[in-house]
């Protein structure tokens, strides 16, 4: 066991954990004040629900002995055999790896909540989270990181662009379409009730993302250093790109734009973080910020109500990141990676596209089945009066503020 690596991974895990409350704030500030608590809770409770799933069977299905390239075995049920001793071939306790991966599993369904914010029933949301984590997240996580079929054919996903961002973006698209637009969409203003809260959330996410990306090196080494720097660079470039784009196209640079752009940049660099140089990260970040800005504009045109832009930021940003990894990855940066198109290897781009495509298709279909099923069984959406009153009172009998 290496105490430096272990120290790093323990703290990195805590940093990824606080991303979920950070996300709660990021999203919470963007809804109307009558829905702030429900939005916060939908992220926060993932810390409870997914943790329990993970201990019971989640880690096992994701990282247990591979079964046909599709799913993990039952060897780690209740974390049996996952202990304080070092992992095979690693330098950190097995439990640290398990905890680190848990935090990824927690935040992924939390990301989706942005799509159906302000109108979903809490009961339906809870069941969705349980089913989606089990039937969508765990298999895809196994494919990519748990010796599943994707892991073995050479695709690169440093910190989860596919498993987390593309995956949640695809699910979000289905969710937004199935649950329908918020009442008042296009008529009333549905604008953010507390942008300082959103900025605080963005700050916490940015901070935690260092644990997410650099931590994905699983060691306090040079790869972690590279991932750390590229993360910072892409976040900054994403923020600036979005800000400048809206300054140019709409005449005003906004704070929500800067915060959204930072997240877009962070999403985009996620799969590439440990494989590209800081100079490449500039381009990945700038393009990430710009692409997501346009993706959000397009949504307003297309007219589906992805309330907090999960598709536009995580879906599109994640997809760009996956492909960008196929462009900018370089063996000079990380000998354990591969060269991308710009370094003479066109094949990587293809693999990246296939992996992303497979994830999208699987996630779209399974998310549709789960959400449709729940809608028929118990209904996804609160009734109209409850929506007008707000989810905080109608679902939780609480109000956010009494100032």
């Amino acid at each position, binding site marked *: 066991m290496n105490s430096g690596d272990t120290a790093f991974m323990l703290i990195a895990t805590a940093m990824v954990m606080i991303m979920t409350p950070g996300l709660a704030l990021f999203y919470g500030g963007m809804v109307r004040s009558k829905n702030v608590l429900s939005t916060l809770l939908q992220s926060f409770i993932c810390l409870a629900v997914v943790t329990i799933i993970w201990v019971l069977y989640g880690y096992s299905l994701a990282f247990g002995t591979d079964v046909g390239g599709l799913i993990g075995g039952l060897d780690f049920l209740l974390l049996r055999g996952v202990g304080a001793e070092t992992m095979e071939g690693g330098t950190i306790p097995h439990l640290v790896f398990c905890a680190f991966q848990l935090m990824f599993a927690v935040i992924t369904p939390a990301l989706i909540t942005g799509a159906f914010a302000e109108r979903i029933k809490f009961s339906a949301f809870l069941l969705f989270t349980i089913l989606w984590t089990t039937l969508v997240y765990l298999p895809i996580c196994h494919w990519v990181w748990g010796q599943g079929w994707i892991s073995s054919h050479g695709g690169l996903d440093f910190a989860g662009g596919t498993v987390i961002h593309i995956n949640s973006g695809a699910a979000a698209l289905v969710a937004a379409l199935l649950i329908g637009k918020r009442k008042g969409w296009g008529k009333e203003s549905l604008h953010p009730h507390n942008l300082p809260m959103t900025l605080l959330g963005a700050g916490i996410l940015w901070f935690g993302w260092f644990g997410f990306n650099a931590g994905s090196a699983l060691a306090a080494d040079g790869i972690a250093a590279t991932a750390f720097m590229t993360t910072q660079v892409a976040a900054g470039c994403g923020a600036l790109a979005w800000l400048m784009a809206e300054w140019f196209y709409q005449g005003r640079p906004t704070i929500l734009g800067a915060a959204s752009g930072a997240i877009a940049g962070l999403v985009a660099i996620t799969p590439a973080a440990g494989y590209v140089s800081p100079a490449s990260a500039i381009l990945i970040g700038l393009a990430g910020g710009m692409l997501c800005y346009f993706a959000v504009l397009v949504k307003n045109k297309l007219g589906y109500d992805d309330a907090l832009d999960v598709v536009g930021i995580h879906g599109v940003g994640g997809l760009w990141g996956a492909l960008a990894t196929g462009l900018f990855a370089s063996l000079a940066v990380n000998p354990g990676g591969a060269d991308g198109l710009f370094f003479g290897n066109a094949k990587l781009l293809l693999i990246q596209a296939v992996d992303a495509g497979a994830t999208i298709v699987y996630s779209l279909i399974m998310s549709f089945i789960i959400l449709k099923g729940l809608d028929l069984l118990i209904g996804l959406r609160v009734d109209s009066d409850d929506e007008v009153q707000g989810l905080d*009172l109608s679902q939780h*009998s609480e109000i956010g503020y009494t100032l």
Partner: protein
Amino acid sequence: MQKIEAIIKPFKLDAVKDALREIGISGMTLSEVKGYGRQKGHTEIYRGAEYNVDFIPKIKLELVVNNSQTDLVVETITKAAYTGKIGDGKIFVMTVYEVIRVRTGEKGADAI
């Protein structure tokens, strides 16, 4: 001149404003108020304790108009704010003796 005070449901504000604009009303003042009446309030729960909250968020509109417009304005608001459910609100009409526009010092009907 008369002052019309209308207590309406908050989510009806846009509809009422648009309806008033259509009949040419271009001045009004609104405030956030809390109403108490037939409409039931709600229950809040905090750490196991329940609180009944009787007061319900409402919007109060205040419009000063010429007497000749009063009936039309009242009717317009009544229609636009209508949902048919308890709590749709009330409209009160009062007399105003003088109106002054600060910017010009104009008085009376000209100042509205």
